[in-house]
């Protein structure tokens, strides 16, 4: 589903990804853990197509198709979704207008007709309800005045609406209290399916109690330095990243 091969990327003179490889198969949940500065957020932005980075080597395939030359919106309609660590506020753009534009762009790319307003409303209301997103939130501009937890729930709502094949969750647990963490995790778990995969990027193990990964990777200094099962996350929680940081530096 998602294949990252020997990815090298830099911003300015600074190389951040130094030969990162990762293969994610349909239905799998991968966790990428790592210390601050390891390149976790860079990886998520590069996958989504932010153009601040220069890719110097390697490739990224989504369902066999190279995506590095695709624009961010083309990647989105190709099935990639990034849940942002810091979902951005967009004053003046109504949430419903935004959701409708996004959904219809996806439908158009698939050759489907645009949804009628009643169909769209019904769809959004159903998804919003499951994530405790009130109609008041839907009436506001995109993410404006949302608390940290509300923003993360709104991200998961967008994910549920767009039905991507690969979901990248960038530090989705940051800024969440335990109740919000549960709602968000349940939202994600509800979307788990044999033909959808997740890459969960996190600094802490606690998210992985709720979204249980199949495979855990340690990202340090721009490379995957270790891969294991869920027990690896527990080990990291206990012993920290020090050993890996030292390894990478060596």
């Amino acid at each position, binding site marked *: 589903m998602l294949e990252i091969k020997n990815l090298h990327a830099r911003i300015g003179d600074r190389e951040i990804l130094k030969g990162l490889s990762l293969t994610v198969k349909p239905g799998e949940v991968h966790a990428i853990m790592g210390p601050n500065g390891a390149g976790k957020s860079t990886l998520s932005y590069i996958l*989504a*197509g932010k153009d601040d980075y220069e890719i110097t080597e390697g490739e990224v395939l989504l369902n066999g198709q190279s995506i590095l030359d695709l624009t961010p*919106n083309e990647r989105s309609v190709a099935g990639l979704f990034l849940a*942002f660590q810091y979902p*951005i506020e*967009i004053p003046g*753009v109504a949430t419903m*207008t935004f959701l409708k*534009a996004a959904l219809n*762009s996806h439908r158009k790319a698939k050759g489907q007709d645009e949804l009628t307003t009643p169909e769209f409303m019904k769809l959004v209301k159903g998804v919003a309800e499951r994530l405790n997103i009130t109609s008041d939130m839907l009436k506001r501009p995109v993410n404006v005045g949302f608390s940290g937890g509300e923003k993360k729930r709104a991200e998961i709502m967008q994910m549920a609406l767009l039905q991507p094949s690969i979901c990248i969750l960038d530090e989705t647990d940051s800024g969440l209290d335990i109740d919000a963490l549960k709602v968000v995790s349940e939202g994600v778990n509800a979307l788990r399916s044999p033909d959808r995969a997740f890459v969960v990027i996190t600094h802490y193990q606690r998210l992985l109690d709720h979204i249980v990964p199949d495979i855990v990777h340690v990202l340090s200094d721009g490379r995957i330095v270790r891969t294991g099962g869920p027990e690896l996350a527990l080990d990291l929680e206990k012993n920290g990243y020090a050993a890996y940081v030292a390894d990478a530096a060596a």
Partner: protein
Amino acid sequence: MVATPARTPAELALVARYPAERTSLPGTADVIAIRDAAFGGVEKSGLPHRRVEDWKYTDLRARLKTFPPAAGPADVARILIAAPAVEDDKARRLVIANGRYRPELSDLKDLEPGLSVFSLATALEAGDTLVLAALKLDDAVAANTAVALNTAFMTDGLVIAVADGAEIQRPVELVHIAEGEPAASTAVRHLVTVGKGARMTLIETIESLDTVAHHSNVMTVLEVGDGAKVDHIRLQLEPDEAVCMTSLVAKIGREASFDTFNAALGAGLARAQIFAEFTGRDARAGFRGVTMLNGRRHADTTLFLVHGAENCQSRELYKAVIDDEARSAFAGRIAVPAHAQKTDARMMTASLLLSEEAEADAKPELEIFADDVQCGHGATCGAIDDDLLFYLLSRGIPKAEAESMLILAFLGEAIDEIQNQAVHDALIHRVEGWLKARAA
């Protein structure tokens, strides 16, 4: 000895036109004297250029290539079938075609009690003393080139009076239409007096049926009586070839509430001037507008506001979207004399540049002589925020559509202040059309 620069073609045309037309323009000898004085000033100084501070960013001498002849009578049949700029069954449309008020095209049915409407040309011909008095302007306003040209060449306009306490339910819409070829000039003056405690909505639309280089000069002198509430909205929809200069002179009385909105969507060269003054205490006013520019168009918004009385509040918000090689200029001057304590004024202008060559100039000025005031001003200028754009793109929205959403959001902050729903919708419709054309 002062060197007189050579006259430009536009100046030569002006100097040739005025003596030929002065006695055939409407008005008694008193009116001719007022016209002569106004034209004399322009003739002496020539068109203003960039070294004249008030025209620093809009060098009229360089930009005004011609000054076309006076417009002839309009073809009424064409105006009758033209689609209205604002779809509003409620509005009372008063049509000024090629600079002349056309009652036969206007809606004069069942004028509300307290509302009177008549032609300026008729009043000038009759030497109406009240109207003559209303032509008198503060010296600084009278000397302004766009104003002086309006005074010299005005052919007609509307004299509208709203009686004390009258609530005019239907918005009054002044529809300015230029029709015919070749390009021609029009100068229209409206005198609007809103009595104490009265209410009205005044809409102005300015448009042409032909894409030729018309010059339109529209000036509205508005008196907002004590405790009155007036909402003024102008949609300037001229073709790209046209030159459009508008001037609003507003005196705002005690405890009055006044809002004015200017949408500059058209014209290759546009200048919107506001000369406003609080003449009584405890009043409030909102000055807002949007400008949308592309190609090599140029639009200027110049606001002179005198906070001439105590405890008045003003809010200024002007937003410009500038694409291609277009250029926008904003100058806003707020003067607070020593006696105008408790003044609360906040001026904001923001420009969104959509291309490398687009340019925005902003010049906020505060002249404060009172010591117990709150005055603020801000000016921003920048491109579309990459992070906002990336977020929309990351959800599958194509770039052109995402940019349109962000541009509309940027303008929306100002547009959403328009209280009149029909005008609000008409403006949004135009903005969306502009964005669609840009995205295509």
